[in-house]
C-alpha cells in the first residue's frame, strides 16, 4: 500500500539526494572520454520453473520484449565503460532462478550488489535509482514466454519501451525516475498478475492494453508528468486500481463493457463524462450490470484527471 502522503514522502526521500547532488557538484561533472562496450548475458531455462529478474538501469534506451528463442532470458547492453558499470548476479534457489543486473555509473549507485537479501523481497524505491544516465546507451531484455517471471525494473532516465504482450509475468514492479516510458500488453499476459506496481518520478508515461495484463491489483504512483493509462484488452476478471498523482495530467481510457467506479480525493479536477456521482463515488452507467468491474481509488494533487469510458 502506498503511504498516505506519497508526494511529501517521496519529496522527503528524494530531496536530500537532489541537494547532495547540487552541493557536491554531481550535476556539473564534466563529460569523460567514451569507450563503448557490448555486454551480454543469456541462459537456458533448463529445469527452472520460475524466474525473478531485477534490472536497474541508469538510463539510455531500454527495450523489453518476449523472446523468440528458448532462452530463459537474454540481456544485451551497450554502454560507455567510462560512465557505466554493468554487474550481474545470478542465483538459483530450488527451481527458481534469480537474475539481478545493474547498469549504472558506479557500484555505489543503486543498491549494494553484495546485499545478500536482494532476492528475499526488498522494495525498490525512487531513491534507489541511479542518477547518471548514459544517454546513448541501450539495453535489450528478452523474456521467455513460457517461464513464469517476476519482473522488477528500475529505470533512472532515458526512454523505455516495454512490449510485454505474450510474456508470462506473475508480477511487474516498475520504478522510473525521469524517463519517457511506454508499456504495452498487445497480447494477453500468460499468467494472472497479482500486482502491477508502477512508481513514476518525472516522466511521460503511457501504458496501453492494460486489460491484457490480467492484473488483480494495479498501483500507480506518479510524482510529476503526463500519464496515460489505457485499460483496453481482454479482461477476464474484475480488478482494482489505486492511482496517486502529484502534479500533472492523467488520462484513463476504459473500454465500454467494463464497469468503473472511481473514488476521488485531492485537488485535481476530474472530468468523467457520463459518470454519475453517488456519494463519494463516480460510477459509470454500467457499474451495476457489468460482468467485469474496475474499482479505482484516485488521489490526485494538482492537475487534471480525465476518464474516458467507451
Amino acid at each position: 500500500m502506498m503511504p498516505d502522503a506519497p508526494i511529501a514522502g517521496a519529496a522527503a526521500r528524494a530531496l536530500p539526494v537532489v541537494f547532495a547532488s547540487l552541493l557536491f557538484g554531481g550535476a556539473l561533472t564534466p563529460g569523460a572520454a567514451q569507450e563503448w562496450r557490448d555486454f551480454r548475458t543469456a541462459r537456458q531455462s533448463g529445469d527452472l520453473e520460475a524466474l525473478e529478474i531485477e534490472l536497474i538501469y541508469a538510463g539510455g534506451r531500454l527495450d523489453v520484449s518476449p523472446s523468440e528463442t528458448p532462452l530463459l532470458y537474454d540481456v544485451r547492453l551497450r554502454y560507455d565503460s567510462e560512465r557505466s558499470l554493468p554487474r550481474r548476479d545470478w542465483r538459483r534457489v530450488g527451481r527458481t532462478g534469480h537474475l539481478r543486473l545493474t547498469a549504472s555509473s558506479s557500484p555505489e549507485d543503486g543498491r549494494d550488489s553484495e546485499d545478500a537479501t536482494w532476492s528475499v523481497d526488498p522494495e525498490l524505491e525512487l531513491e534507489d535509482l541511479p542518477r547518471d544516465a548514459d544517454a546513448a546507451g541501450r539495453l535489450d531484455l528478452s523474456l521467455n514466454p513460457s517461464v513464469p517471471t517476476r519482473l522488477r525494473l528500475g529505470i533512472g532516465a532515458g526512454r523505455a519501451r516495454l512490449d510485454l504482450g505474450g510474456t508470462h509475468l506473475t508480477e511487474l514492479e516498475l520504478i522510473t525516475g525521469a524517463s519517457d516510458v511506454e508499456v504495452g500488453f498487445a497480447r494477453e499476459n500468460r499468467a494472472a498478475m497479482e500486482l502491477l506496481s508502477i512508481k513514476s518520478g518525472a516522466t511521460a508515461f503511457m501504458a496501453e492494453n492494460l486489460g491484457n495484463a490480467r492484473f488483480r491489483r494495479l498501483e500507480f504512483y506518479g510524482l510529476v508528468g503526463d500519464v496515460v493509462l489505457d485499460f483496453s484488452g481482454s479482461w477476464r476478471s474484475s480488478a482494482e486500481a489505486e492511482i496517486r498523482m502529484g502534479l500533472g495530467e492523467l488520462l484513463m481510457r476504459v473500454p465500454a463493457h467494463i464497469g468503473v467506479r472511481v473514488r476521488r480525493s485531492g485537488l485535481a479536477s476530474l472530468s468523467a463524462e457520463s459518470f454519475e456521482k453517488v456519494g463519494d463515488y463516480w460510477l459509470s452507467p454500467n457499474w451495476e450490470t457489468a460482468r467485469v468491474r474496475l474499482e479505482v481509488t484516485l488521489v490526485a494533487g494538482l492537475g487534471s484527471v480525465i476518464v474516458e469510458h467507451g
Partner: protein
Amino acid sequence: MRRALAFLSCFAVALPVGAQEVGIAGAAITFSAVGRAELWFELESGTEHRLRFEGETVEVDGIGIGSYAERGGLESAWRDFLREHAGEDASAVRSGLVEFRRFLEEWSSSAEAADGDAARALAGRIDAILGLAAPAPAGAAPALPAAEPAPGISGQPGPMQIVPGGLGFDVTGELDRLRDALGRLGDSGEFTEGRLAMIVHGDYEVLAEATIPGDVAILDGTLRLDGDVDGDILLLDGALVLDGGARVRGDVLQVGGEIDFGGDASRVEGEILSDIRLTPSEPPARAAPDVPAVQRVESFEAPMRMRSAQPGLGSRIARNFGRAAEGVIAAGCAFMVFAALGLLLVYFGRRRLETVSDTVRLEFARSFAMGLAGEVLFLPVLLVLTVLIITIPVALFLVPAMALAGVFGYLAAAHAGGEIFARRRFRSEWLERLRRSNSYYYVVSGLALLMLPFAAGAALWVLGGAADFVRGLILSVAMVGTWIVVTAGFGSVLLTRGGGRSVVIDWSADSAPGDGASAGAGTDPPSTPPDDA
C-alpha cells in the same frame, strides 16, 4: 566459470600429427649486449616466428615457455647453434634447427630439472612450428595417444592433436585481465581444477560427433565447433563459430573476439556471458530502436498504437516546474535544518559562536588559510593515526570532530555574514526593516544569504534548457562560495580552539605606544551588537 582461470594457469601443447614439414624462407640471428640470443625466421607459408633466450627466460613468439640457467648447458648450446648458423641460408638454418631439436631431446633427459623443462618445451614448439613428427613430450599426461590424431578434431591446415599437461603456452599473463573481467561480470561459478582440454592458438575445427572432454580457451585464431564441448568455453580473442551440430555443456564467457552462434544461442546449455570492447571506429548504436522493435511488433495480434514518446509541451513544463520545485524545496529544507542547528547553538553556546564568528569576520584571510591547512592535512594525519594502530581511537574521534568543526564553522560564518548584513545601511526601506542585531537574526539571515544562490539556481529550472549555462554558473559560484565559507569557518574554529579563546587582533591598540605585536590578542572582539537581545 572460475575454473576457466584454473585451466589457463595450466599448460598445454598442440602438436601436429602427420602434418607436412614446413620449410624456412628466411632467417635472422641476433646477439645483443644485454644477453639476448635470438633466432627470427619466416616459414614458406609466410608465418613469422621468434625463438629467444634472454634474462634466463626462453621465449617463443614473445611468450615465455620456461627458464634456463645463465651460462648453463642449454644457453651455451643455443648460442653455439646460433653462431654456427649465422650468415647461412634459410635451408641450412632449418637443418640446424632440426639438429638442435634432436640435441634438446637427448640433452633434456640428463640435464638439471629447470633447463630440462625449458628444453622439452622448446623442442615441442620447434616440432609444432616446423611440422616435425615428434614423440609425446616427456612428463606429459597423454590423455590422447600422440601417435593417433584426436578423432574429429582438425586444425588448419592439418589435423591437430591436443595433449593436456604438456608445455605450450604460458598464459598466466592473461590472468589479471581475466580476473578483472570475471569480477566485473559478477561471475560466481565454482572453481574446478583439472578440466583443461584445449587451448586454441590457431585455427581449429571440431567435427560433428566429436567431443572435447573439458574446458576450452581460445587465445587467438578460430575454433569452428560442430561437435560437443563437455565444459566451458572462454574466448579471449579470435573467433568461435558454432555450427548446427555444436553443443556446449557449460558456459561461454567472452572477453574479446567474436562469437557466431549461428542464429541459435540455445546450443549453449550454460550461461552466455560477454563483455567486449567495441572497436573505436564503430559508432555507438544510438537509439535506432525501430528495426528490432518493428520485428517484435509484427508478432502482436493487435498492433500497438504507441504515441510518440517525445514529451509534449505540457509535460516538459510540468517537469521543469517539478525540478525547480525540488531544488527550491531542497534548499529550503537544508536552510531549516541548519537554521535549527544555528538557533540551538546560539542558545547554548553563544559566546563561543560569537568568538568564532568574529574571527571569521575580522580575520578572514587568516581563518581561511588555517582552514585550508586543516583540510589539506586532514587525510595525512588520519592516515598516520590509523597506521600507528595505538592511535586508532584518536583517529576515530578525529573524523566526527572534524565534521562537527565544519558544521560549527559554517554556522559561525553564517553568523558573521548576518552580522555584516545587519551592520550595513540600505537605501531601501524594506531592507532596512530586515536589519536586526542579535545573534539569532545573524545566524538565520546569514544562512538565508548562503542558501539563496542554491535556491535561485534551482528555480531557473522553470526556464528549462535555455538557462542551463546561467544555472550552472550560479550553482558553481554557490558551491565555491560555500566551500570558502566552510573553510574559513573551520579555520576559525581551529584558531579559537572551538571558540574558547579570542585571537582577533585589536588593530586600534597597535597605535598605542609601548604595545607589543600581539596587542589585542585575548581581548574581547568588538562584536557586541548595540541592541543585542
